């Protein structure tokens, strides 16, 4: 029984954290009314959402996929094209884009999953670069100039708003849904199977797990969500071009957020995004004119973190928590 009490006590601490974060999400727009702070938080939440999506394939299924910019770009382009050329509202456009991205990810994932380790990562990088070069020269999508969405002011059906508050609410809801989805998945059969595949693929296969199928499931879910993020981006910025939605930096940033935060944990990407994306916005605001400074600081954190705390921020929090518990139990004893 002793272990079960500890589980409940630990869980409640975790839930207090969730509750606090939920309240923060709700209260933030009331305190920080200024559009700039809203815009920064929108970007932070967008990357928390993307990080959570990548966490599904990178953190849980343990596949180092470095080509998710392709799906982000597909999502952004498909919903924008449907809106500009056919007048289809971005909401259904987003779902169509996400389904197409999911399909493409499975199509490219299936052959790539035969590859092990570094080769899988390299294959995904190559795939994403091919998509970028293709979009850069494809007249229909505007080539290097990209697509400009018409500015229509406030219109829910056109997924466009004059103030940033509705955007904030939408991305918060997106993020909460992705958080719950990953939370549900991690507790389910799929989540266990992912962790097994990540830990030892052969042992997993011998226990009746079709590893390819479950890797494809993780690929589908992660690219589906990342593609939704792409649509949100195109509706927020109202401009889509290959150098902003299809570049390798984006694939790295999406993975980085989850890795620095703590892969394979539900809360990791949130921590990672708040740390890295918020930090880079603040540094850019503070030392705007020193070229490249925020990326240098970014890089130092990444290197130091990956060497000394590979499990990411979550591991640091766990250490702090256990340190507190030890102190408390010492104090009590």
């Amino acid at each position, binding site marked *: 029984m002793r272990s079960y009490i500890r589980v409940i006590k630990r869980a409640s601490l975790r839930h207090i954290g969730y509750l606090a974060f939920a309240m923060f999400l709700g209260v933030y727009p009331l305190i920080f009314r200024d559009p700039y702070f809203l815009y920064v938080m929108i970007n932070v939440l967008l990357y928390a959402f993307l990080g959570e999506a990548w966490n599904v394939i*990178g953190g849980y299924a343990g596949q*180092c996929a*470095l080509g998710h910019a392709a799906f982000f770009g597909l999502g952004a382009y498909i919903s924008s094209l449907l809106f500009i050329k056919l007048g289809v509202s971005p909401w259904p456009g987003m779902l169509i884009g996400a389904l197409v991205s999911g399909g493409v990810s499975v199509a490219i994932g299936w*052959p*790539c999953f*035969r*590859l*092990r*380790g*570094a*080769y899988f*990562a*390299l*294959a995904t*990088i*190559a*795939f994403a*670069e*091919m998509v970028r*070069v*293709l979009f*850069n*020269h494809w007249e229909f999508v505007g080539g290097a100039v990209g697509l400009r969405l018409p500015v229509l002011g406030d219109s829910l059906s056109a997924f466009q708003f004059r103030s940033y508050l509705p955007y904030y609410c939408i991305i918060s809801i997106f993020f909460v849904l992705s958080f719950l989805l990953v939370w549900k998945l991690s507790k389910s059969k799929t989540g266990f199977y992912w962790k097994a595949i990540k830990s030892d693929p052969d042992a997993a296969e011998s226990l009746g797990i079709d590893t390819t199928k479950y890797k494809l499931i993780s690929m589908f879910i992660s690219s589906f969500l990342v593609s939704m993020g792409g649509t949100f981006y195109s509706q927020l910025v109202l401009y889509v071009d290959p150098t902003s939605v299809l570049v390798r930096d984006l694939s*790295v940033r999406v*993975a*980085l957020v989850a*890795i620095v935060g703590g*892969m394979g944990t539900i809360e990791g990407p949130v921590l990672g995004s708040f740390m890295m994306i918020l930090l880079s916005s603040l540094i850019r605001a503070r030392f705007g004119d*020193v*070229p*490249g*400074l925020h*990326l*240098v600081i*970014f*890089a*130092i954190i*990444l*290197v130091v973190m*990956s*060497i*000394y705390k*590979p499990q990411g921020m979550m591991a640091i929090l766990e250490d702090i928590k256990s340190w507190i518990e030890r102190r408390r139990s010492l104090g009590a004893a």
Partner: protein
Amino acid sequence: MPPDTALILGVILSGLLMGGVYALVSGGLSLIWGVLKVVNMAHGSFLMLSMYLVYWIWRLTGLDPLLTIPITVALFFLLGICVQKGIIRHILEASLVNQIFVTFGMWMLMNNLALMLWKADFRTVSNPLVSGGLGIMGVRISFPKLVSFGFSILATCAIWLFLQRTKIGIAIRAVAQDRKAAWLMGIDVDRIYEVSFGLGLATVGLAGSLLANFFSVYPYAGDIFHIFALTIVTLGGFGSISGSFIAGLIIGLAEAVSAFINPALKYFVVFGIFLIILLLKPEGLREAL
């Protein structure tokens, strides 16, 4: 020689010569990947650093890039040892994702540090010792590329001999095959890692001196070479120096020919080849040699 065939021959030749330079850069990456089993995503940035070093030596002392070769090779050999001791040593046991992202971190660090220190301006060595070109029967050959090709052949053979003949070379190949077995045979694996990483960066130092002849340096100069190097090492099979050399020629040729047909999609072709090799024959040419 009818103009068209001369032109095409010229393109093929310059593709091969350029392939030689790519092969040299990839040789270092292949060695590091083969021995340490770490995919060095910062390889391109080291090349950028060596190009800056050559530029500053030329700018401050007027020494021609080709004469800086001994300096860059030596300095980058030492740099390789320091990087291995300082950073790579910690991540040898780490998961693949952590390894890749430490090297991503180093790539980001070096590119942006260069941007902060030397601004983003384009710097070129003007009128180096070797420049211009000559035409034999209408086929144009570029001197800097010819010299670079020569040096990269020399370097590849030197490394190959070093690996085959010398004691350390054999030890490196043993560590590449099976780290634990080599360890049991009394090989100081850590020192071998340092030497291998040092050798890997030494080739990058040499490549920097050669490229400075015809290529301008700026903080992001190394990135494109890095993508080519990844393709070449995969085609050649990591750890195989001769594999990388031949793969370098193939990729150089593919780039030149596809550029002649449709320049816009030449990277599409290169990445296409990369993906196809990965899917069909991940171990690359290594088996074939």
